[in-house]
């Protein structure tokens, strides 16, 4: 008795069976594009975070957007990051000056914060999902 009679493969969308000629494209079929593959190259280290404030408007990240944050990447000058500063997670742009790491908002209306000993860069922002209205 073949095993698939016990726990058969279940496909939820009925496959269309053509009664006429087989499609000449059959042998060339490829899976269709999946946005996740593009935006999340490292699924183990990627987190989605919703943005609440306007402090990163200059980087085109607006309130209500969802940013894709990859912890596996290393932050560098000018990157946008999520940082843990004192007791909060913040979305900021990194600036390195005189071997010190500063966190800026964009536009830089708020005073820059220096990354302290206890603080850490939580992850690097790689994409922003923005609903166009």
């Amino acid at each position: 008795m073949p095993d698939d009679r016990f726990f058969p493969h279940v496909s939820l969308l009925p496959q269309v069976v053509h009664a006429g000629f087989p499609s000449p494209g059959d042998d060339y079929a490829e899976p269709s594009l999946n946005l996740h593959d593009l935006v999340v190259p490292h699924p183990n280290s990627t987190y989605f975070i919703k943005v609440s404030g306007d402090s990163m408007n200059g980087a085109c990240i607006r309130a209500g957007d969802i940013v894709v944050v990859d912890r596996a990447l290393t932050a560098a000058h000018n990157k946008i990051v999520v940082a843990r500063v004192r007791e909060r997670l913040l979305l900021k742009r990194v600036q390195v000056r005189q071997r010190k790491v500063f966190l800026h908002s964009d536009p830089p209306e708020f005073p820059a914060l220096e990354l302290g000993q206890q603080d850490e860069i939580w992850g690097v922002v790689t994409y922003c999902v923005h609903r166009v209205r």
Partner: protein
Amino acid sequence: MLVDAAQFYVSCERVFQAALHARPTIVLSNNDGCIVALSKEAGKLGLARGQPLFQCQQIIRAHHVQVYSSNYPLYQEMSARVRRVLAEFSPRLEAYSIDESWLELTDLAIDDLTEFGRTVKARVYQDTGIPVRVAIAPTKCLTKIACELLKGDERYHDVVDVTRLTAEQMNTMLEQVAIEDVWGIGPNSARLLRNYGITTARDVCDADERWLRKYLTVVGARIQMELKGTSCLPLEVKRPPKQQIICAKSFGREITSQAELEEAVSCYVVRAAEKLREQDSLAGRLTVFLRTNPFDTSAPQYANEFVIDLAYPTAFTPELLKHARAALQAMYRIGYRYKKAGVVLSRITPLPVVQPDLFGEVSLVDHYREMRLMAVVDAINRIFGRETLVFAVQGWTRSWRMRQERLSPRWLSRWEEILTI
């Protein structure tokens, strides 16, 4: 190599909540009953694992201890992430528990194991935000013991390679581990060994092999070999199917009505049957049990269990539900306040050994139809989320469900609950 995520549940909460860093934090068991995980800071306040919540209220208030219900969807996903990162370091991995994994390094060309351990620790933290301890040793038993060493001695910075310890350091390490804490030695064996003056892991090493074999059978002899550095407990890379599936939980509040009890038991049956099918098995026996709250000494007490031997092994949920209902009908007594119920599936056989019977009472055709139906239900629930399809007997409100008043959001599994900053 054993990778152990210390205070894992607390670490999961901390990844998403910056305010919890360095603050005493505890995570509670099902129904918010007692402490199941706690941060170092909470430990220093005198809190301990297993302590009932009501006993710690004073400390919690005085020190602003952060209290959370167990957010299992979150912990499960974080655990899977940690494991996938680890799997990149070795093809042979045993997922031992939600927060512990063994990796086999035997055939890998690694020059400096301590350095390798540090790399693993750093990568896991970088990618997931979860701090781990790494213990490298020739045997599973020794990795467990080395992990205890890491807990007690901060100089190792959470990474140790046992093969690099001197004989003296090794002996000190083994002496520090009480017999009860040796992996593989149960409480009864520990008591027995204590009576013979064997009180530490070191004593097990020094014991006479024949004596150990006589009193603790081959199991004891194996543990001794492992402690001496000869591996005899290989990695279980593929879990053998379970011989017993249990689904039992205490309720958020006490239940008195038979209807609600039936809802709860049905929910447990549905989940147990799902697990049964996940491992491609059938069950030949169903046990249903229930009990009142034994801690409430003023209330009348009642506990019972009902065993049903099924004529034909099955994994068909409606069939199991029917029997569970009959069992409940037989056991239910009016006037008691029930606190817990559960179901156990046992006499488990692998699926493809269904025997057609001589008298035609079980039809193979029906059996296949049932299994196909269940496969469709499972597929829909897998794709569209848990409990997309439910059996009506499972009920809709389920107000008896476990109490979780301090649950953090499901940051990784629900769009409407993702982290906002």
